[in-house]
């Protein structure tokens, strides 16, 4: 989810950068277009340069030849007025332009035009030099004044404008990012759920509804495949059960038949024992696949785990286990009445798998202790034995290696059975956690922890967006 946010940030940031580059390009293009005109306006032929040149070259008698040549080159006419408004001299002055002026005339044309010719004036000691440019070559602004206040405001205005632009850009960035994330969050979550192999349903209106449709379709395909797989396993395990009953039944009968030889009875006992293993495998396999694909509805009820443990141990002892094993329970007083919302059948199954594991791995016998503690809203159930335990390597392998049911690696060791995998799945179905500790030759301990606080159901993942 975080990566998606960064992704959007990056793209929006690059969009902003692109905007900046665009502005820069505009400035450059503007410069390139107007460079020529600007250089002309302020270059050698500009009125100011011409006036300076002409004023130095002008006397009350006339202009130097050089100056005359230059003015003619640009079609500029000129005249030199005395302080009283008479002409000292004129150069190429058009006919319609008068030859003498009063004060009012000078005041008017000095700012603007003389008979539509843009004119520029230069004050000298002797008089007033006037240059007339061809019609329509310059536009003169006749009313160019600004209040000082307005001029003083310009820097603030520019800064403020830039600041506001930046703010607007940032807000646009911020809100569009938020909106995109809001709209895409459910999609990303749904895809993450799908990636975990779990079905997800997505409800989105508007432009993204098409994506929701695709996600839902993918989810349906996953569900269907999971269902087909679970049904297949359930079907096979179902069909094995009746024949297996008969194998177990007859093997048991032969093993108990006094009329046959000892050897035959021994062999029948082996058949019986092995078929019991198949029985356990078949039962576990079905439950594992049901839990794996969430096909097994959990029958959760408020249960006192203390009671459940006692009844499990009593049943185990009543069914008669070998004297080599001692089973003890230790229920902390505060755990006695603690309730857990759980599926009693599954929790019993998990406890049984752990106890049977201890029995299986310690054929020489061992002491098994089931304890229950309750601290900080967490029920901790421990099944520990003092048997052979596991080497650190084995322990690590158990914790890290995926079970063959969940792995596609064909080289995996297939001798583990399903017991511990089933325990883990049952614990996960109850939002609990499982920890395995072992010291070689000293014992093996599995700790299951469950929170008794009410939690949001994890099943039926569904995402909504508006």
């Amino acid at each position: 989810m975080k990566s998606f946010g960064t992704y959007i940030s990056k793209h929006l940031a690059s969009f902003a950068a692109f905007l900046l580059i665009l502005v820069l390009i505009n400035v450059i293009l503007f410069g390139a277009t107007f460079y020529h005109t600007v250089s002309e306006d302020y270059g050698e032929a500009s009125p100011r340069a011409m006036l300076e040149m002409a004023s130095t070259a002008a006397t009350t008698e006339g202009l130097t030849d050089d100056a005359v040549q230059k003015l003619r080159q640009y079609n500029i006419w000129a005249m030199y007025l005395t302080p009283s408004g008479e002409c000292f001299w004129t150069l190429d002055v058009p006919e319609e332009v008068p030859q003498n002026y009063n004060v009012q005339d000078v005041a008017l044309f000095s700012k603007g035009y003389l008979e539509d010719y843009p004119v520029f004036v230069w004050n000298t000691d002797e008089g007033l030099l006037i240059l007339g440019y061809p019609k329509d070559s310059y536009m003169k602004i006749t009313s160019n004044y600004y209040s000082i206040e307005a001029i003083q405001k310009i820097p603030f205005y520019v800064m403020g404008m830039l600041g506001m632009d930046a703010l607007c850009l940032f807000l646009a960035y911020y809100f569009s990012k938020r909106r995109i994330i809001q709209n895409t969050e459910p999609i990303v979550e749904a895809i993450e759920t799908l990636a975990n192999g779990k079905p997800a349903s997505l409800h989105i209106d508007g432009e993204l509804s098409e994506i929701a449709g695709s996600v839902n379709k993918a989810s349906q395909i996953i569900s269907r495949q999971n269902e087909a797989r679970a049904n297949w396993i359930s079907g096979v395990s179902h069909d094995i059960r009746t024949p297996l009953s008969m194998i177990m039944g007859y093997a048991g009968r032969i093993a108990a038949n006094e009329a046959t030889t000892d050897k035959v009875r021994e062999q029948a006992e082996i058949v019986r024992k092995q078929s019991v293993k198949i029985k356990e495998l078949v039962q576990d396999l079905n439950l594992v696949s049901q839990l794996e694909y969430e096909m097994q509805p959990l029958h959760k009820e408020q249960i006192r785990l203390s009671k459940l443990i006692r009844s499990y141990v009593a049943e185990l002892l009543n069914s008669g286990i070998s004297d080599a094993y001692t089973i003890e329970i230790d229920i902390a007083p505060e755990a006695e009445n603690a309730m857990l919302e759980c599926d009693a059948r599954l929790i019993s199954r998990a406890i049984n798998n752990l106890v049977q594991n201890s029995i299986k791995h310690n054929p020489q016998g061992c002491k098994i202790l089931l304890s229950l503690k309750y601290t900080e809203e967490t029920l901790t159930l421990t099944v520990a034995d003092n048997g052979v335990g596991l080497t650190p390597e084995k322990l690590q392998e158990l914790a890290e290696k995926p079970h063959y049911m969940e792995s596609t690696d064909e080289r995996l060791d297939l001798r583990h059975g399903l017991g511990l995998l089933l325990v883990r799945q049952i614990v996960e179905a109850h939002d609990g956690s499982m920890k395995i500790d072992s010291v070689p030759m000293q014992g093996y301990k599995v700790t299951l922890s469950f929170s008794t606080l009410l939690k949001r159901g994890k099943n039926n993942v569904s995402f909504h967006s508006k």
Partner: protein
Amino acid sequence: MDNSFLHSKRLLLVDDEQELLKMVTDILKDAGFETVLTAASVKEAVIVAKQEKPDLMILDVMLPDGDGFSLMEQLRTFTDVPVIFLTAKDEAADKLAGLGLGADDYISKPFMPQELLLRIYAVLRRTYKEDSPLVILDGCTIDFSRAEVNKGGEVISLTAKEHTLLETLARNEGKIVTLDALCEALWGDNPFGYENSLNAHVRRIREKIEVDPSKPVSLITIKGLGYKLITRK
């Protein structure tokens, strides 16, 4: 425990698998049951049940002309005898519990012959109690019908709670009965915090039935779990 008084009970076995029927019949006959009837379909089972009036019925859930649950409903219209379901599905167990059909037990396939026998005995014992209500312990005899203990000629009467407690233990004789199950038998559902009262009752019962109440040999404490009653064969 002596179950031989149950061997005269007539059993009806319903399963569509002929070979399984034969095997289970053999197991039951070997164990001592005198009459084992069989049926391979819902139709046949109803006819046999009406004619032969069995004392216990063992039904498969999957039958060619219907399922065991509906068969049970049909049977319940004319008989109240106990029913044990044989199922090849794990889910069937949930269904049984959920439907509350009133089946007495269920056994999921594959099963061990010994397990099947034990469950049949347990259901039969629950339903058809032995006529003699006498339980013989080491040093005394309990007569449940009169709520009395006879210890070396001395007759001591039992209170109602003591009677219930002893009867629950005697019904499961030789087996551990959990504290929870005993409390439930005495005080009903959710008996929180009655352990001390239970201890007090056990102490009083020991005074009545044990030769040396400080060294009990009949009513044994299983630490942390519950109690069990040892009877004399």
